């Protein structure tokens, strides 16, 4: 079982069958993380490099734990310690890394398309761990796995994604992921944060949080990036929180068994109230757990077996 591709660059390029393969593989790998000795030798002798040009806690840790549980050797290159600050181009950095013969490069970069840039130039596989405003495919995959575990299915669900869609790679990947798997996606946010043509992605668009969450099986809150405040997207945090912050009142509008998701890190009291974040509907920590499983699956499917 393997993916017939060298790289994982975005959900938009994946077919539903490939997504199912990754989710099924992830589900079967979850058990490893519950063992006393959380390690299997599957990727022994393989080298995985993480190259992060943006700060990240959970994604990077999640990839590293996933690789280690599969016995791959990991090397972490951070932007502060790398040549980027010395003015080295992405192309040169890539070729220098490749000269050390890694099997897989995991990149996070502030520029949309940076992983594609590397994938075109490198023989080793490339995983996109978040590129600009574009995609964050493993986040969407872990979100799918979390929903599938909670609901037993993905097709026919109503999924509401709330917040700054314009600047969110998590939203883009999740819109592709959920629509490909048969869910109905509604997005809501202020018009400044909903880019034009969203409807062409097959989602319903509203400016009303109440409408978006009505009858929802899944509510996904996006992190409000506080730097947007100075860029004419919003008036005040107080107003944003009033109209687009999720609180316990909204839960009553959704399905009884609604689950609440958030890719983290949380702005408590801004996009989500503490009562909801910590309440019984929240699956935010399950998302983190599933992140490791999904990333193990992706590593395995890209460089496991005869590949690599």
């Amino acid at each position: 079982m393997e993916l017939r591709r060298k790289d994982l660059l975005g959900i938009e390029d994946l077919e539903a069958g490939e997504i199912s393969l990754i989710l099924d593989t992830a589900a079967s790998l979850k058990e490893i993380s519950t063992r006393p000795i959380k390690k299997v030798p599957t990727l022994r002798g393989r080298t995985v490099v993480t190259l992060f040009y943006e700060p990240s806690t959970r994604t990077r840790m999640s990839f590293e734990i996933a690789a280690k549980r599969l016995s791959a050797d990991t090397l972490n290159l951070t932007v502060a310690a790398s040549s980027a600050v010395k003015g080295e181009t992405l192309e040169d950095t890539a070729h220098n890394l490749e000269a050390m013969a890694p099997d897989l490069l995991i990149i996070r970069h502030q520029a949309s398309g940076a992983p594609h840039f590397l994938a075109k130039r490198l023989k080793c596989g490339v995983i996109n761990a978040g590129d600009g405003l574009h995609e964050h495919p493993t986040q969407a995959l872990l979100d799918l796995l979390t929903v599938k575990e909670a609901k037993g299915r993905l097709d026919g669900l109503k999924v509401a994604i709330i917040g700054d869609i314009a600047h969110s790679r998590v939203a883009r990947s999740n819109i592709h992921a959920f629509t490909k798997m048969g869910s109905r996606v509604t997005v809501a946010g202020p018009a400044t944060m909903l880019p034009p043509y969203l409807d062409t992605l097959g989602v319903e668009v509203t400016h009303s949080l109440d409408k978006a969450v009505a009858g929802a099986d899944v509510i996904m809150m996006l992190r409000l990036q506080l730097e947007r405040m100075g860029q004419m997207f919003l008036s005040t945090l107080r107003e944003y929180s009033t109209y687009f912050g999720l609180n316990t009142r909204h839960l009553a509008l959704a399905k009884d068994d609604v689950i609440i998701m958030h890719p983290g890190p949380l702005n408590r009291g801004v996009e989500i109230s503490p009562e909801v974040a910590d309440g019984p509907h929240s699956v935010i920590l399950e998302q983190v757990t599933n992140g490791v499983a999904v990333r193990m699956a992706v590593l395995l499917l890209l460089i496991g077996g005869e590949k690599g």
Partner: protein
Amino acid sequence: MSLLISGGLVVDPGQNLEEPRDLLIGEGKIVALEPPGKISPEGRRVIDAKGLVVAPGLIDMHVHLREPGEEYKETIATGARAAVRGGFTGVAAMPNTKPVNDTAAITRFILDQAQAAGLARVYPVAAISVGSQGHTLSEYGDLKAAGAVALSDDGWPVRQALLMRRALEYARTFDLPIISHCEDLDLRADGVMHEGQISLRLGLKGIPAAAEEVMVFRDIDLARLTGGRLHIAHVSTAGSVEIIRRAKAGGIPVTAETAPHYFSLTDEAVLGFDTNAKVNPPLRTAEDVAAIKTGLADGTLDAIACDHAPHSSLEKEVEFAEAAFGLIGLETSLGLSLKLVHEGTLTLSQLIAKMSTNPARILGLPGGSLTPGSRADVTIIDPNREWTVDVNAFASKSRNCPFQGWNLKGKAVATIVGGQVVWEE
């Protein structure tokens, strides 16, 4: 020795001519234009133009030659060589060099370099404001005396409406056109491609069509106010075409150009993050392409100019958001534009008007005509020659061309400047 171009189809929109004619050239001028066989070939160099089109020399009124300052991208000599290979006998060079062409000395330097290259004629376009900084008018009288043919803010759009008003007025004093790069920089913000469905999917920040259109509207209104001669550069949107169409109908002194990439490509060319498709204004949608073609056909758009913008791999082999805007076009412009003729959008005569007669008229140049007595700038075109774009064979120093591998039909086979054959295939 005089030169006889015999047996070709002469297309000269200036005299409404599209007939087989023999063309005699001597001492740098057109000597005679006669029905086939009337001029004796004896003692003359003869170019057999049977099956070919003989046109007044093509003029690209919007190119960037990068000299002085960025000679690693292009020089006046390499740009002029690319021009003549593309069939252009003249090009208008935009002022955003380093330093900016805002003084007579730099204008003269550009003309000297062009003279030394001895290929295409180079017509300097000077800056609207000192350093293109948008504060102080440059010396339009001196610049014109030195050889500048127009004034432009290309690359550094004029933010202040008051400065644009004064520029249109002051330029009128010296009978110079203002070529406006219409772009609201605040509205563009940090956009890198057309704002639409593709930018949404790629997660790239968008440049809305309105960033161009609000400035087209502003500058047309200022042309109405001042009576200054306004030329709108590189029109890319359906909305701009409509605004210009209405302005012309209302008698406002405005002309406009578009570039081959705006009728040959859409924003889908950016898919895969191809930095060669990153250009400003950005590639738009299929609807815009259709409107550009309509605008060319109905005369709203007067000229085709390629906005040749050479960049090296240093500017293009980088992340999309970091990459420079611009693509090269001198060696593909005619082939892409002839497609408009082959598909029936334009007649051959209309196309030659947009690539020669009209640019000459707008810039007040002596070219663009084959009437006897005119200077002998001539382009001979094989409209049916099929060829494949190969950037590695280009004369330009740069390779940032999104048309690599395209099969085109039609190209220049000889370029004659001042009676000299400067390039032939």
